């Protein structure tokens, strides 16, 4: 299991298009993906769960990945968030 902390820096937060990109990326891996923030935990492969988190810019989230490709998965999601989903 790998746990990382990362801050959402893109302007629109983890909403709509970024949320979709996150879920699509997470689903490409076999590992289980969880997002935790503001005392809530969501399945990182469920678009509804991720959108329901309402994660705004500057929120620090914890991403937990667990499975045979947890390392690659964790890295890919972290890179995606740090790249601001191509927003800027």
């Amino acid at each position, binding site marked *: 299991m790998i746990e990382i902390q990362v801050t959402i820096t893109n302007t629109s937060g983890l909403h*709509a298009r970024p949320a*979709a*990109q996150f879920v*699509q990326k997470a689903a490409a891996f076999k590992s289980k993906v969880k997002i935790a923030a503001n005392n809530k935990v969501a399945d990182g492969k*469920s*678009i*509804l769960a991720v959108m*329901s988190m*309402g994660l705004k810019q500057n929120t620090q989230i914890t991403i937990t990945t667990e499975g045979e490709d947890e390392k690659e998965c964790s890295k890919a999601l972290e890179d995606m968030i740090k790249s601001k989903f191509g927003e800027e």
Partner: protein
Amino acid sequence: MVGVVIVSHSQKVAEGIREMALQMSAPEQKIIAAGGMADGGIGTDAFRVSEAIVSADTGDGVAIMVDLGSAVLSTETAFEFLDEELRSKVQIADAPILEGAISAVVEASLGSNLAAVVATAEGARTLNKC
């Protein structure tokens, strides 16, 4: 991949929702707008809907998002014009049209089956906005 059809009384609404949904879709994904009447007027047209369903299907079925009232009746009428095989794999989502369409498109992009795509679209009813 499950296709998504957007049925609205307004052509602009259907196309606008499609435009938003395309932002989140996979490149090969089919999202088809079936809005308004053939003459551009407000209304729903079962033939436009059935054509949209046929274009949206790539073999895995089609989830259909509807707006109000007769959109459901026209869509159900459209089912009658489909061949039996396709008719067995189309489903109307009881979901808000915009949120449902976006959620369905993302779910479909993950390679989920029709039942899962419809369930996710219907789950969009519970999305809080503030």
